[in-house]
């Protein structure tokens, strides 16, 4: 909740560049939080912020919100456009609503939480860190994931985890179709507890059970005897 130490920025009368400069200045000055009003699905609000600060977005946000940031935490009281949290290095972004295509693309650390549904390609090229989706995830989510953890409490559309190299996907519902090179694995001790703890922390209702999915490594190196897999992958 916003407090006295919170800077309030109204987007209505400001160009994007000014808004980002104000946020950067606030972070430089050690202001702990910024409340951003009238976001109206504006793109690129709060990008390239490299000092710790807490961002509170009042409303829907557009593309690349909290993109290319390091150490930023954010709560988005609405839904987000494409690429929320793009390339995050560290920090946490919580989307109260839904996220459009490509949530948390290529993040290299930190955590992105989408309480509603996530569109296609959620967690694409995830390199490290966490993506948690309270609802369903769209087509080809987790595509070419390189590491990290993706939790999907609901169902996943076709191609879940396709061509993932490493990392884990925790699926609560059903996948319409698994992607190439994905297999189900047994949970290691403590792993499921950590997943449930994440959900509890964000007050997301946990599904009855989870399946842990990971790369079967069949696509790590070309194998001519496994043409069926490589036909689609090379």
């Amino acid at each position, binding site marked *: 909740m916003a407090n006295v130490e919170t800077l309030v920025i109204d987007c209505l009368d400001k160009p994007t560049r000014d808004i*980002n400069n104000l946020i950067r200045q606030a972070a430089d000055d050690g202001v702990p939080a910024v409340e951003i009003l009238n976001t109206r699905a504006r793109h690129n609000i709060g990008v*390239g912020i490299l000092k710790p600060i807490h961002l509170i977005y009042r409303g829907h946000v557009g593309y690349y919100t909290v993109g290319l940031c*390091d150490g930023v935490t954010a709560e988005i009281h609405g839904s987000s456009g494409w*690429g929320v949290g793009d390339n995050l290095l560290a920090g946490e972004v919580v989307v109260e609503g839904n996220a459009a295509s490509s949530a948390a693309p290529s993040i290299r650390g930190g955590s992105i939480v989408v309480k509603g549904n996530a569109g296609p390609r959620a967690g694409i090229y995830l390199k490290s860190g966490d993506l948690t989706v309270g609802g369903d995830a769209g087509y080809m989510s987790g595509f070419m994931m390189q590491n990290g953890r993706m939790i999907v409490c609901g169902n996943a559309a076709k191609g879940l985890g396709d061509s993932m190299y490493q990392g884990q996907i925790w699926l609560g519902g059903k996948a319409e179709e698994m992607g190439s090179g994905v297999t189900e694995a047994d949970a290691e001790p403590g792993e499921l507890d950590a997943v449930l703890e994440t959900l509890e922390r964000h007050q997301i209702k946990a599904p009855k059970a989870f399946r842990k999915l990971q790369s079967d490594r069949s696509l790590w*190196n070309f194998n001519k005897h496994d043409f069926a897999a490589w036909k689609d992958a090379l």
Partner: protein
Amino acid sequence: MSSAFERPPAYSGIWHPDAIEEIQEKAELGRYQIRGQATKRHNLPSFDDLVFTPAGLSRMPLEGYRERCDTEVVIGEGRVSRPLVLERPIMIAGMSFGALSVNAKRALGIAATRCGISTCTGEGGMHPEEREHSSKLVMQYLPSRYGMNPYDLKKADMIEIGAGQGAKPGTGGVLLGLKMSEEVAKMRDLPMGVDQRSGCRHPDWMGADDLYMKLEQIREVTNYEVPISIKVGAARIANDVRIACKADVDAIVFDGMEGGTAASPTIQLDHAGIPTIAAIAEAVEALHDMGKQDEIKLIVGGGIKNGADAAKAIALGADVVYLGTAPIIALNCHAPIYIEDYERLGTTPYECQHCHTGLCPVGITTQLPKLMARLDVDEAADRVTNFLNAMTMEIQLFARSCGKNKVADLDPNDMRSLTQDVAMMTGIPMVGLNGRQPWWTKF
């Protein structure tokens, strides 16, 4: 002894030895062939099909030894607060750390810095050594986003959004596991030894409107300081130019089908994309259509080997040429040394194209310390500097001989075509047809 009546080869024109070898290799491998370097086609339209028509009586040349001939090009002038100033109309193309050894990166950086031109990270992130050695460094922002982070973006002197390359338009990068080192794997967040296939589509933008927003994001991160270009494999030029203009890039890079690579599917090298010369003609026309020819710089690469190619590209309307293979060759690629190692790869100098194996005999496209040590950084940097100097002099030679005191002033009227194909492609009249009509039509 040759005879005037040499018999044609006895093998079929279709099932010639190369086609047979290719089929038999695929029958063994079970996949398409992958190799480095570039297309092996011999029949592409080329800059050699154009000639300059320098000054005579009707125009005065410049004195080669005395008169200035400017070579500077500025990207992003009047558009960003820190435009990229190139002292010559040349850039070293993006070649990844991973494809190249760190020694090769160092040597290219030293040479480029001496010549006042830029190098480019390529895929795989910004290696600190490269930043240190290159005074002007372009950082590629590619679909894979390997090693991507806002700190390095801020350290770059230009950002190049990679959306394709001439050697494999419409497909992503390839780095075979046998070429990966611990350092390369770490920079790319990949497990050791995997056959790495990069995505070819950016994870978070698709259409023209998205690209505009992506540019805004990168400009925000880099504080509107440095220019942003977009690199595309030359194919659907006119529409790509329109989209790049809409996204408001500072420069557009077209990489023709002759473009070099460290690893591409052979079939793509030979059968995808359009030649560089055709790409320039189409791109220049499209930029004029959009009224952006003075604002957005046109950078072209793919098979540019000397000052003549570069001067012709500029006369056709390009602002800068983009060199990959030529500086690699200046480093020592194909040098007839360590012959036994070429032989071990089943090849010879001049024919080698084994960059994808990581076993480069001369230490350029390898990560193996033993091979890397074969490239002496200082000597290699001197060779690349010499080559870039010679090439710059060649470009100036043509400009001066055409009476231009700025290389950028070379224009299509300074050339004639030797072949009908190139005349049609570029609109440059055929030699001997001064203005296209045969002379006797006047009488």
